[in-house]
């Protein structure tokens, strides 16, 4: 993983100085956000019923973007004064960037979300957005052997980028099974059919008619014994089912997958949520959250997060939530999925969550 969109690594002193002066620089260039790159929206396109593609070109042509097809990028916007960040897969090919200098992000509108409905309503050609941190391990590994791709709905986006970046000779060895509700409303069909014309073996499976993924169905559409590697992208359930079926014939380390979609608060929290914690020195740990405040649960698991009043007044226990949704126990407000500062003493996890905390030193 290589965060290639980051600007050149700055020394800490320069970063501190720039952060100190950022509001001054913003008076003449309001789009200057330290450590973000500014992108111009050139085209906005509706794909199917609820996916919008944004074509973006870098405003600073000296700052080259690099990405490996399959990777994602953080898109940040300011909504009512709040900077909100979401991670989206790049859906355009490597060649599109090389030859034409653009990338595309295809965003599924989550109706109960804060960011995606705002994007589809507010972002028009000519607007500027901020990107940072291209990352992701879900990338294509070149191979002479047959490879299988499984995509469900908007989970196609990283796979589309991988496939469109391949040469025709390579495409002939690849099979894509694309699960959609119905072909008429499904996005990206024209682009996939073009790839099929170049040699990709394409099966579009309409879940309305054929139902969800099963072993028999998979066997019927793909030659499982020949495939040496698989790439799966879709909702959690889709990934779990595919893994169970695929691991009979494909080595587990060759089943690449990426979870897609908004993690939703579950009503049944008996099993708890997985909380991944890293501290400022990079130490990682995991725990299961079962409904207590994150501060209590981190302490129970043996961590020593910084805290003060334990009542939401002093902000000593403020930590960075990298992903996941949490609920404020005083206001019952449920957060969004993206990166945010949260008070550990006031929050409980309502989905799997990833945190960056500061620990006590003594």
């Amino acid at each position, binding site marked *: 993983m290589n965060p290639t969109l980051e600007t050149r690594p700055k020394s800490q002193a320069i970063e501190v100085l720039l952060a100190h002066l950022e*509001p*001054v620089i913003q008076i003449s260039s309001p789009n200057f956000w330290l*450590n973000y790159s500014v992108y111009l929206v050139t085209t906005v396109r509706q794909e199917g019923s609820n996916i919008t593609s944004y074509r973006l070109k870098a405003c600073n042509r000296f700052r080259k973007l690099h990405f490996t097809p399959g990777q994602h990028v953080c898109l940040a916007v300011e909504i009512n004064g*709040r*900077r909100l960040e979401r991670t989206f897969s790049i859906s355009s090919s490597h060649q599109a960037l090389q030859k034409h200098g653009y990338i595309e992000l295809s965003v599924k509108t989550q109706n109960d979300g804060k960011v995606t409905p705002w994007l589809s309503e507010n972002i028009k050609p000519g607007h500027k957005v901020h990107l940072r941190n291209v990352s992701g391990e879900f990338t294509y590994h070149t191979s002479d052997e047959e490879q299988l791709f499984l995509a469900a709905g908007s989970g196609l986006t990283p796979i589309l980028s991988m496939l469109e970046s391949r040469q025709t000779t390579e495409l002939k060895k690849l099979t894509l099974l694309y699960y959609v509700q119905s072909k008429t409303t499904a996005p990206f069909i024209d682009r996939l059919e073009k790839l099929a014309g170049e040699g990709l073996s394409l099966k579009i499976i309409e879940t309305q008619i054929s139902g969800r993924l099963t072993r028999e169905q998979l066997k019927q559409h793909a030659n499982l014994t020949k495939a040496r590697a698989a790439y799966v992208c879709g909702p959690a359930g889709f990934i779990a089912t595919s893994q169970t079926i695929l691991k009979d014939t494909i080595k587990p380390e060759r089943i690449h997958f990426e979870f897609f979609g908004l993690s939703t608060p579950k009503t049944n929290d008996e099993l708890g949520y997985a909380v991944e914690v890293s501290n400022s020195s990079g130490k990682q740990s995991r725990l299961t959250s079962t409904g207590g405040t994150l501060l209590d649960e981190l302490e129970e698991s043996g961590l020593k997060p910084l*805290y003060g009043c334990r009542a939401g*007044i002093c902000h000593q226990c403020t930590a960075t939530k990298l992903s996941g949704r949490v609920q404020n126990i005083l206001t019952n407000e449920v957060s969004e999925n993206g990166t945010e500062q949260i008070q550990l003493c006031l929050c409980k996890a309502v989905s799997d969550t990833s945190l960056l905390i500061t620990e006590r030193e*003594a």
Partner: protein
Amino acid sequence: MNPNDNTTYTTKPSSETLDKFAAELDALKRRTFAKVGTKDARYIRRLIAFQRGLDITSRIVIALGLLAFSGSTAFVIACIGTLGLASAKILDNMEIGHNVMHGQYDWMNDPYINSRKFDWDIAADSNSWKRYHNHEHHTYTNVIGKDRDFGYGLLRLSDDIPWKRKNLWQLLTYLNLSFLFEWGVAYHELAGERIFFGKRRAESSLPISRNALRTAFFKKAGRQIFKDYILFPLLFWPVALPVLICNIAANIIRNLWTSSIIFCGHFTEGAHTFSEADIKNESKGGWYYRQILGSSNIEGSKFFHVMSGHLSCQIEHHLFPDIPAPHYREMKSHVRAICKTHGIPYNTGRFSKQYFEVVKRVLSYSLPNNQSDPVPMREI
């Protein structure tokens, strides 16, 4: 309305009254939070930009004035520059630093303008200040033995504190503290933890090692001394000495202003103190009530409120420490009205009046067991 409503009030309201009182304040808090947004983000960014500009312009004005002119012209220009630099420091410490470090702007998700990252132009290490100020002082406001901000371990401002001989000249101690206020703020936590002098505390909630506390103190203090007293004077070498004097003067002006505002917030005649027994099983309403009794406001213009970091709305700040401070101005009248309906005192007045009361209080507790208290100092 009589600004000293509290003189007429002595007994603690019933728990039902306090519950109703808390519900009304909570509702006001929710209504205000709903209004927080783009305007506040723009305000704080613009203010920071203005402050940065004022800081550097003032430093240049001081140096150019001294380099290009002589005699009284140079003196006047240097004075103007010094006032500008002092104002920049006041804005940085109060309306920006104090409020950002309270978490008032954490909702913006800005990677730098937040309570964890922001650092201020003052000798005190921001992490140390956040520990004792946000936690100790704001949770245990004016609780004797818990809130070390009450008299800063130097002044006797209540009969709950045993009288010592040194209290006789505590007005001088107070003036000293005012002049050197930033060092008092910087040394506060180290004094409490007895890092250099005194017997080590048996119990300490210090989340870092004593060594780390000492290192952070020297690091921040060293950086401030280097910046104001070495780097900038040397940058303008031929006038290094007068530049140094201007920088010292700017820091002193800032110290006098900040300490005066802060003392008016908690040590006026009517500001109550509490014992640890008072806060056992305290309800939300009880906490709100204690914050109001322990704080006092200063009346003034919008400019005055901004220059005091809205600590002139000390009562609102103590009730809602993480609401962006400019909203305190509009909340004031609502809080006062809520207090009035429940018969709870609300201490407010002009700066001169409040400051006079502070000096009076410092003086009156210089002597042992002051019996002439105009107000009962303890709530039972």
